[in-house]
């Protein structure tokens, strides 16, 4: 018991209702995973809707998908994977109490995330110019066999990538807060839970994109 008490004195980040730092860390990780499970449900509904409508209107979805630039999608996938690597290295730097490399890796993650979003802005503005946005102005130059349901594809495209981008924006905001806190020396091998948990969030957003990319960009490319 006395050793537990001394750990509480030694580690100011340890809350009084936890036995030790390991227990506190495990509780935080589990809490984050619980949140991520609700995120699976959140995106899951959209994925399900996409799958059902794609199975109902395969031709309309394939034609609409071919209007997307798969190269931009592939580049963005690679950028996001790079940002996942820098994120995981940031967590590792925090685990090793390397404050400087922690900040560098966090900043790199922010930069890569921003490049992804910038790429997305370019893509979206192309879609606006090409009249591919669902609504009264929908009218792509290419002849479509079933424009109405191709419009449905673009609703899924904008809905899903838009929500994904919103998650990225929130993630970048959290990363900026982490950089600020890391500069103040809040994280070390004794306490790096916020970095670890933000990592979980960031990787989850990466996983969503890993599924979005082939589903949206790579239908019937033959």
């Amino acid at each position, binding site marked *: 018991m006395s050793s537990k008490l001394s750990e509480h004195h030694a580690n100011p980040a340890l809350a009084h209702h936890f036995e030790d730092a*390991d227990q506190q860390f*495990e509780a935080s990780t*589990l809490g984050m995973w619980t949140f991520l*499970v609700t995120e*699976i*449900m959140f995106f899951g509904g959209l*994925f399900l809707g996409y799958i059902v409508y794609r199975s109902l209107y395969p031709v309309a979805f394939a034609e609409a998908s071919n209007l997307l630039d798969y190269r931009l999608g*592939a580049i963005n*996938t690679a950028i996001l994977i790079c940002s996942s690597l820098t994120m995981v290295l940031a967590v*590792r730097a925090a685990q090793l109490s390397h404050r400087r490399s922690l900040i560098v890796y966090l900043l790199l993650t922010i930069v890569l995330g921003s490049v992804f979003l910038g790429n997305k802005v370019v893509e979206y503005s192309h879609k606006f110019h090409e009249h591919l946005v669902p609504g009264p102005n929908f009218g792509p130059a290419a002849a479509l066999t079933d424009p109405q349901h191709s419009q449905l594809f673009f609703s899924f495209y904008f809905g899903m990538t838009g929500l994904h981008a919103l998650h990225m924006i929130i993630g970048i905001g959290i990363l900026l807060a982490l950089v600020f806190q890391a500069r103040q020396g809040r994280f070390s091998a004794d306490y790096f839970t916020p970095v670890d948990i933000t990592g979980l969030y960031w990787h989850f957003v990466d996983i969503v994109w890993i599924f979005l990319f082939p589903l949206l960009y790579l239908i019937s490319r033959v």
Partner: protein
Amino acid sequence: MSKHVIIPQKIYILVFVTLLMLTLVTVDVAFYDAGWLNIYIAMTIATCKALLVVLYFMHVRYSPRLTWLFVSAGFFWFLIMIVFTLSDYLTREVLAKPGF
């Protein structure tokens, strides 16, 4: 924080390179006509990538059993939703035929 496994940088780089290679493969494979198989190939590759991210980048491989349980419960629920819904939608035409 004695129990934490600090994973060697080499493993992270290896996972990273594998993820990039699988991205190239998934793009390349999309240009071969495998008919209805295409989507299953793409989803298998995506699932492999997701698994790598979950196990290594999200440290689930090194996490306690309870985390394992939560993670697998989440994805299992997602599978139930997809499989049960598709078992309805994909069989409607079959069942509508005379003789059923």
